[in-house]
C-alpha cells in the first residue's frame, strides 16, 4: 500500500515536472470556469461558452503570432495596429462584394507579413529594441489609418467573409474556432518537430550561443515577426467578418490581449520558453475573465486595468516559480 502511494506521488511529480506550467494553466482555466460558474451560473450556459470560443479564436490567432515572437526573444506591440489597419483596409476595399473577398483577404494577409518584416528588419538589422521598434510602427500604422479614413470607415466586409466568420458546425463549434485550433495544432507540431521551432527556442534563449552554433539569428527572428504580422492580419479579417463592420477603436486591446494570453500560457520574456498549447489556454482564460468582468458590468477602463494587472501578477508568479 505504501509503495503504491509512493509510486503515485512519484508519477505525479514526474507529470508536474514534465508538463509543469502547462498543467497549472489548464487547472487555472478549470478553477476559473468553476468559480465563475458558481458566481454567475450564466457563464456556463451553451450560448456563453460558444461566445467564449468564438472570441477566443479571434484574439487567439494574434496570440499565436505573439507567442512565436516572444519565444524567439522579441515582443510585438504593433499587433493591435495591424489588426486595426487590416480590418479597416479590408472593409474599404471589399465594399461588400463577394468577388473581391479572396484577393483582398490575401492582400491584407500580405500587408500583415510586410508589417512583420519591417519590424523584424528594424529589430534585427538596425538593432532597435523590439518594444520601441514595434511601438513606432504602431504609431506609423495608426497615423496611416487615420489619414486614409479621416475618422470614417467605408465599405463593408464581403458577405462570404461574414458567413465564414459566423458559421457554426455541429451546432456548437464556431468555424473560426475550429480553424484556429487546427492552425494552433499545426504550429504546435512546427515548434516541436521542425528545425524552425528549435531555432525559435534557441535564439530566444541565447542569441549569442545560437549565433556561434551557426544559426542565422536575424533570419529566424525576422521569420517570427513576419508570422506574427500574418496572424495579426488574420485576426483583423476574422474580427471584421464577425462584427460585419470596421470600427476605429480597438487598437490597444489586441496588443495587450495577445501579450497577456501568451504570458498566462507560460511564455516568458527573453528565455526562449513557451508553448502554443499554453497560449491556447491562456487566450481562453483571458476571454473567460473578460466575459466575467462584462457580467459584473465592469466598464472598459476596469478591463484595461485588469489586463495590465494580470500580466504583472502572472509574470511575478512565474518568476517566483523559477527561483
Amino acid at each position, binding site marked *: 500500500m505504501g509503495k503504491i502511494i509512493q509510486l503515485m506521488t512519484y508519477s505525479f511529480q514526474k507529470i508536474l515536472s514534465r508538463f509543469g506550467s502547462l498543467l497549472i494553466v489548464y487547472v487555472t482555466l478549470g478553477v476559473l470556469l468553476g468559480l465563475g460558474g458558481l458566481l454567475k451560473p450564466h457563464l456556463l450556459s451553451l450560448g456563453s461558452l460558444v461566445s467564449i470560443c468564438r472570441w477566443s479564436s479571434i484574439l487567439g490567432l494574434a496570440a499565436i503570432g505573439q507567442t512565436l515572437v516572444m519565444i524567439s526573444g522579441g*515582443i510585438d*506591440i504593433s499587433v493591435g495596429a495591424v489588426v486595426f489597419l487590416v480590418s479597416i483596409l479590408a472593409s474599404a476595399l471589399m465594399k461588400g462584394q463577394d468577388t473581391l473577398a479572396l484577393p483582398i483577404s490575401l492582400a491584407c494577409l500580405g500587408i500583415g507579413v510586410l508589417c512583420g518584416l519591417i519590424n523584424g528588419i*528594424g529589430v534585427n538589422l*538596425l*538593432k*532597435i*529594441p523590439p*518594444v*520601441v*521598434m514595434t*511601438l*513606432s*510602427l504602431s*504609431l*506609423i500604422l*495608426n*497615423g*496611416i489609418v*487615420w*489619414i486614409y479614413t479621416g475618422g470614417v470607415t467605408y465599405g463593408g466586409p464581403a458577405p462570404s467573409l461574414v458567413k465564414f466568420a459566423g458559421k457554426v458546425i455541429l451546432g456548437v463549434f464556431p468555424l473560426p474556432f475550429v480553424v484556429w485550433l487546427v492552425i494552433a495544432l499545426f504550429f504546435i507540431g512546427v515548434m516541436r518537430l521542425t528545425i524552425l521551432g528549435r531555432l525559435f527556442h534557441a535564439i530566444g534563449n541565447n542569441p549569442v550561443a545560437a549565433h556561434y552554433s551557426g544559426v542565422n539569428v536575424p533570419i529566424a527572428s525576422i521569420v517570427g515577426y513576419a508570422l506574427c504580422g500574418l496572424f495579426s492580419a488574420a485576426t483583423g479579417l476574422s474580427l471584421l467578418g464577425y462584427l460585419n463592420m470596421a470600427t476605429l477603436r480597438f487598437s*490597444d486591446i489586441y496588443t*495587450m490581449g495577445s*501579450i497577456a494570453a501568451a504570458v498566462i500560457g507560460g511564455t516568458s*520574456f*527573453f528565455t526562449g520558453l513557451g508553448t502554443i498549447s499554453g497560449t491556447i489556454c491562456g487566450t481562453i482564460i483571458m476571454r473567460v475573465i473578460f466575459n466575467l468582468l462584462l457580467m459584473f458590468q465592469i*466598464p*472598459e*477602463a*476596469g*478591463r*484595461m*486595468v*485588469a*489586463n*495590465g*494587472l494580470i*500580466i*504583472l501578477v502572472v*509574470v*511575478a508568479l512565474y*518568476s517566483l516559480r523559477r527561483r
Partner: protein
Amino acid sequence: MLSAKTPRRRFDLAQVGLAISVLLTCFISLCLIPQFKNPENLTNLIVRLTPLYSVALGQGLVMLVGAIDLSVGASISLVTAIASILMSRSIAEAIIMCCAAIFAISLFNGIFVGKLNFNPFIVTLSTMYVIKGITLYIRPQPGGVIPKNYIDLVLGRWNNIPIGPIFYLLFLVAIGWVVTYKTIYGRKMFAIGGEKKAAEYMGIDCSRYMIISYLLSGAFVLLTGLYMAARIGCGDPAVGEPYTLDSIGAAALGGTLLTGGKINPLGVLWGSLAFTLINNIFNLLGISIYYQYVFKGIIIVFVLAIPLLSTKMKEIVWGK
C-alpha cells in the same frame, strides 16, 4: 571613493550635427514660413518645448541606468485628470494627491525593475495599461476645471513673454546638468548604465539607484502633468499619450543610449527642440496631425538606428 568631478568629455560630433540641423531647420522655416517668426508662434514653441524636455530628461535619466519607462505618457494624463477633479476644491490638495499617485507609480516601477530585476519594458508597459485604465475610469472624456489663478501662475506671462515656462525650462536645464555631472549620484548612474555587474562589484547599491532614477523621472513627469493641466485647462485622458514615444525619441536624438551609460542633458534639449519644431512646422503648414504620427515614427526608428549606422559608416570610410 567616487568623485563627483566632471569627467573629460570628448567632442561629440553627433551633438554638433544635431544642433546645426535644428538651427538650419529654424533658419529655413524663418525664410519660407511667414508665420514662423510671429511672437505668438515663438511663445508657442517655448510653451510646447518645456513639457517635452521635462519628460525627455526624466526618460533620459531612466535610460541612463539601462532601463526605460513606457508609463510616462499615461502618468501625465493621470495627473491632469486628478488635477481637473480636485483643483476646483483646493489646489494644494490636488497637488498632494498627484504627488502621492506618481510617487506610488514610480516606486512600484523602480522596485520591480531595480530590486526584483523584472524586465523594464514589461513592467512599465503593464503599469501603463493600469494607469490608462484608472485615468479613463476617473475621467472618461476631457473635461473638468482648472482654476484661472493656477493657470496664470504656471503659464505666467509678462508683456506676452511666457515667464513661467521659460523659468521652468531654465530650472530643468540646471537640474539636468547638476544631477548628471555634478553629483556622486550622477556618477553612480553612469557606472550602473555602463556595466551593471562592474558597478555592483565596486560596491554601488544598484537597485537603490535604479529606484531613485525612476523616482526622479516620476518627479519630472509630475511637474509635466501639472504644467499640462494648466496648458490645456482641463483633464484629458489622452493628453500624455504622445509623450511616451516622443520622450524616448527626443532623449535618443540627444545622444542618450537605450542601452544605458550615456546621457547629455543639453543634447536632450536639442532633441526635444527638434521634435517640437517638427510639430510646429507641420501645424503651420496645415498638415494633418496624423502625418506627424507617421513622420515622427519614422524619425524615431531612424534615430535609434543611428548608433549602428554610424559604426557601419565608419567601417566603410576607414575600414575595419
